């Protein structure tokens, strides 16, 4: 899957345009909003979640799908506290992710040619160009052992 210079390219659909880069924070478990997202501190508080209390501020937040109530928009509301991610990437979404992305107003993409949560691992460096529909992944050497 990796080419010689450890870069992987993913293609997907723009939800919110723009360019951003940062370290990936990946969840293979869906994210849930309303009471289970703490917008102020910028992390999930869903009990038993692998990202419980792991801050997503400044990260490229990569996840599978949304679940739960319209309060998923709480992820977007992190914007009001400056705790929002640098970019928002998800395998499959619906109105929950769209509203969260509109409020968060960071480069957001979905509907990729491959499952982003399979290709991208926490700690990889990710460059998101939502305007062009391209995500460039530079693997963290730690993730290649």
């Amino acid at each position, binding site marked *: 899957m990796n080419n010689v210079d450890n870069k992987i390219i993913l293609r997907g*659909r723009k*939800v*919110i345009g723009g360019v951003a880069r940062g370290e990936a924070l990946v969840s293979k478990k*869906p994210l*849930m909003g*309303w*009471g*289970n*997202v*703490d917008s102020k501190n910028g992390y999930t*508080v*869903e*009990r*038993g979640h692998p990202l419980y209390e792991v801050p997503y501020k400044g990260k490229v937040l990569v996840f*599978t*799908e*949304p*679940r*739960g*109530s*319209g309060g998923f*928009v709480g992820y*977007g509301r992190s914007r009001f506290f400056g705790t929002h991610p640098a970019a928002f990437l998800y395998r*499959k979404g*619906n*109105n*929950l992710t*769209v*509203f969260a*992305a*509109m*409020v968060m107003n960071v480069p*957001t993409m979905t*509907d990729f040619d491959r499952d982003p949560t399979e290709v991208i691992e926490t700690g990889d460096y990710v460059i998101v160009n939502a305007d062009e529909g391209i995500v460039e992944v530079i693997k963290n050497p730690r993730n290649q052992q």
Partner: protein
Amino acid sequence: MFLTDEEKRILDGEKGEIAQRCMQFLVAYGEAAGAERLVDLDGTVDMHPGPSWVPEYDVKPQEVAELARKGERFKVPTFSDKATAPSFVMDGWEHCGVLPSSDPEFHRKCLENLKPYMDMGMVPTFSCDHYLVSTYWPSVGQHCAWVESSAIPWVNAILGARSNFDGCFQTAYLGKVPAYDMHITENRAATVLVSCEAELKTDMDYDLFGWVVGEMLGLKVPAFVGIGRPTTTQLVKMNSALNTAGQVRMYHIPGLTPEAPTLEAAFQGKKPAETVSITRQDLRRVYEMMNYGSSDDVDFVYLGCPHYNIEEIRKVADLIEGKKCKVRLWVMTNHPTYKIADLAGYREKIEEAGGLLLSGTCPGLLMGKVMPPSDYPDVVAMDATKQDYYITGHCHPHKVQVRYGTTEDCVNAAITGKWQGEWR
């Protein structure tokens, strides 16, 4: 996104600045969602009165009041979900003991803020299950804009109308929504055949089954076989769990739901992409997960997620008649059902036992602050997976334990102060 000439004129401001702002919202939303066009609503809207999804496009209550004064009305019948004004309790607020909910001036102010929406035509059902009391339903195939976990599968699967989770002022005012996802026929086809091998008997069984399937399927559309003939209570519970543990906003029960006269029709003639079976062991796993905590010393019992229907209230009134609660018991419903429960004497029976019948909110909306003066309960008993799974988040960082079981288990906990429920 394609816009008609009329839609372009609204976007250009021909119908005023507020209509323009609402159209800007619909266009930004539609483009982000990948919709090709807007569709005119011919069904109904279910909205949370108050701030909208994206603050940038908000229409303030004063602006709504001004529109109402000019005689402007919502384009289709519009119903109120729970008011999102923090702490607003519609009925029973005087006794709830939680501030500011129980402050008369606060209550008056909340109602005053809700009036402009009602003046524009919003029906004050104030409920997460407005569909049980709206007295008016969309027909099969009609386009709607609803909100709420349990309501979305109700409108799509049970009624056969078409809705995403996007009811709000803008969609009600313009009578339009982006045409994508559940508005498109092929997206409504089942792709997964779910065969239930667990015999679903109690209301709790349907709640657990919904959670198991929701967690397993996420955004996929299932067709169910082997789930019997669920009651209204059981459908509401199952829908709530399906759309909380996952995003199952549409499903089919062949021979029962309107878009699936047959199993083949549920799949729109295609073959299932997946087949899964659900066993009693799957239900048990979720039951254990919902019993989050080990203390049996319950200090708060909450019933009414989604808002209890009259049959559920009657059941609680019967169970509790002549008994006394040792701990705080809240039974939550919607405004119309509260009135009927009052007339029927159920409210009196619950209150004589020391419980409270309330309407229009839930512990989640109150951010877990239900136990003055300490705010948060320590050990809660509930009969709903949805509220159970959220309450620990709402009370965070306060650690709350949750005991989950049947309605009877919960009423028993209210009377004894002890959790005695177990898997049966």
